[in-house]
């Protein structure tokens, strides 16, 4: 199928750049699709284990599978899709004869890292879950693999930054094209966030190699969550990118406001990193005051979230009004619910409303004790990364693959059924998980019967509900794999190359204040905020605590 992509169709530079990047983007998309398939199978088996339907065999035990599921879904599936989509966003909006070498190097480094981490997990030497909390000590291969996965994304980011810089040099009086701006803004956030990984790996790798004898557990946890929360925003910002710029194009709508979109992303950049302590509300060794400070900064995300909600619904309403539709029902019915490129992200938006409510609870400082490390949290991130983010990426894949291959989608009806079954399955699974969490059922536990303890008995019905919902989601992923690989394997060339384009804005982009495009400055400010928010807690960790813990393999 690769041969269907001409290296160049002659013509203008934009055409050339498209042809150049298409194979790269397609490789990213199919890698993420494959990873989603494997991860979903593991997820379903976890549901079966916790419902006491099966017991995983010793050669592939629950925690090894849980590590694989978490790493593949949270770190690999999302990262490959997002870096691929942002490469597309830049290549298709900045007309330039370019080399894709940097992009390919990035992809290969990410892939090598993923394979290394996967080998370590599958051979049982890294059952440390995706959070790899020290002093659980995985084999060095796992830490090196994870580091390379992140290092690869830096090459992709460099490629994006260089293209944006080239555009600004060529067009000093123009605004960066909006999709390219969003890509560069999100990746600026990502670079700042992954500095936490660099710091943590700086402690973990020498320790895993036996060069240092002990590890400061509190400090590694703090570095991890410095990265861990912006990781969540990385998924959400990519989903927002698609909601703002791609979704309107599916019904001929326009982006509500160029300037407000840029402002929302700049705010997300600033508010992504100074917030991580809300994952450590129940940690000893961190004063309550620092935790309160991070509660405040975390709530700041309400502002760009509200702006986004307004812009998305305004886009829907303005387009529907143009078509002569009025009222809430009229607008909703008019939208293209039978197009999976629209329905995927739109169903994700519905799930995200509940994800947002749950997030407010999690961040509520003292209320967090009721849900921390319970199944509630698992329900929360499945209705956020497993809802809006994954459904948006899947919907976008249904648009990207035909556009990149020039083929029509294989079994488009199945694609439509797929997004709706995912929505239903995820709603059932997540509701069950939230409920089990409110009853106190712990997360990350192979079997929650506790030898028939009275308190644990109340959790079983919810665990069955989660397993049923999880099965529906896994079947949905199977449909997704069938559609994606079917499009790859069968020759269904379209008469007109299917489009996956970005919508135009309502207003003239030149009305946008130029200062919003100064991503370098915003990046420095974001870094300064992160340093301000973390200087105190990190100093406290280092000053109050001289004890190091030896590494252990407890699995």
């Amino acid at each position, binding site marked *: 199928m690769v041969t269907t992509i001409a290296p160049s169709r002659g013509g203008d530079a934009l055409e050339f750049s498209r042809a150049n990047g298409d194979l790269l983007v397609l490789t990213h998309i199919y890698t993420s699709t494959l990873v989603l398939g494997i991860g979903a199978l593991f997820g379903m088996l976890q549901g079966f284990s916790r419902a006491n339907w099966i017991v995983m065999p010793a050669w592939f035990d629950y*925690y090894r599978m*849980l590590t694989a599921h978490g790493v593949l879904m949270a770190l690999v599936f999302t990262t490959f899709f997002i870096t691929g989509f942002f490469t597309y966003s830049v290549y298709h909006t900045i007309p330039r004869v370019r080399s894709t070498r940097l992009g390919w190097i990035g992809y290969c480094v990410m892939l090598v890292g993923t394979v290394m981490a996967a080998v370590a997990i599958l051979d049982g030497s890294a*059952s440390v*879950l995706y959070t790899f*909390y*020290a*002093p*659980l000590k995985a084999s060095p291969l796992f830490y090196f693999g994870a580091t390379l996965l992140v290092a690869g994304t830096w090459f992709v980011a460099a490629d994006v930054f260089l293209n944006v810089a080239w555009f600004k040099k060529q067009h000093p009086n123009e605004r960066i094209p909006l999709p390219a701006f969003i890509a560069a803004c999100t990746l600026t956030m990502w670079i700042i966030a992954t500095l936490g990984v660099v710091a943590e790996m700086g402690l973990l790798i020498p320790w895993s190699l036996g060069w240092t004898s002990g590890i*400061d*557990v*509190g400090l590694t*946890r703090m570095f991890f969550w410095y990265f861990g929360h912006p990781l969540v925003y990385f998924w959400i910002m990519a989903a927002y990118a698609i909601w703002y710029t791609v979704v309107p194009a599916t019904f001929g709508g326009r982006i509500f*406001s160029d*300037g*407000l979109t840029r*402002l929302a992303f700049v705010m997300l950049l600033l508010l992504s990193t100074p917030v991580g302590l809300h994952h*450590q*509300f*129940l*940690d*000893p060794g*961190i*004063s309550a005051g620092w935790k*309160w400070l991070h*509660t*405040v900064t975390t*709530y700041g995300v*309400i*502002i760009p979230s*509200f*702006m986004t909600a*307004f812009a998305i619904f*305004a886009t829907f309403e303005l387009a529907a009004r143009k078509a002569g539709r009025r009222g809430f029902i009229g607008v909703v019915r008019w939208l293209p619910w039978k197009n999976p490129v629209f329905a995927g992200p739109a169903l994700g938006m519905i799930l995200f409303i509940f994800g947002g409510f749950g997030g407010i609870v999690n961040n*509520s*400082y*003292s209320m967090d*004790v*009721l849900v921390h*490390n*319970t199944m509630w949290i698992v329900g929360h991130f499945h209705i956020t990364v497993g809802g809006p983010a994954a459904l948006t990426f899947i919907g976008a894949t249904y648009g990207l693959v035909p556009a990149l291959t020039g083929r029509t989608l294989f079994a488009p009806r199945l694609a439509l059924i797929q997004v709706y079954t995912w929505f239903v399955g995820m709603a059932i699974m997540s509701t069950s998980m939230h409920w089990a969490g409110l*009853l*106190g*059922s*712990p997360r*990350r*536990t*192979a079997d929650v019967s506790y030898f028939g*303890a*009275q*308190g644990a008995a109340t959790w079983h019905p919810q665990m069955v509900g989660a397993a049923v919902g999880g099965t529906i989601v896994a079947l949905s992923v199977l449909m997704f794999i069938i559609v994606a690989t079917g499009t790859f394997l069968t020759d269904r060339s379209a008469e007109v190359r299917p489009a996956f384009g970005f919508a135009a804005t309502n207003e003239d982009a030149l*009305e946008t*204040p130029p200062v919003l495009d100064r991503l370098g400055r915003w990046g420095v400010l974001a870094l300064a905020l992160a340093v301000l928010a973390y200087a105190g807690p990190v100093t*406290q960790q280092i000053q109050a*605590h001289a*004890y190091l*813990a*030896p590494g*252990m393999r*407890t*699995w």
Partner: protein
Amino acid sequence: MHVHRQERIWMTFGLAMLVIFLAVITTAAVVDGFVPPSHVQSIDPTKVAQTPPFDHPGLRKVADGAYEAYYVARIFSFTPASIEVPVGSRVTFYVTSADVEHGFSIPETGVNTMVTPGWVSQVSHTFKERGTFLLVCNEYCGSGHQMMAAKVEVK
């Protein structure tokens, strides 16, 4: 850059929510003391068994209806495995880990804290109802994590 009037109203609503949430949380923290467990006290995780009071983990009565309970978390059990307190008792739990990261949670009571090697965690609760409460480790600690549990009997 034009900001629509309806958007101004909507954003004012969002900002008001933000202010209200923070006011409620801050008031609850300052006035009622609803603060997440944030005890700052370090301990050498390799010498827990020799460090008082964790060299003799267990329940201590400090006054009528007031207890202190010292726990050591270690793969894959808690010491003590069971404690018994009269109904209405206020129990302050002190927990530390002798090996890896653990959790310390008594479902449906609000007792919930991380147990990090190198630190002592502290959390208090008044048991107002009789019964047998399950105490579980709610952070993954290894292959036997699902077996790591203890009991609190309230008579």
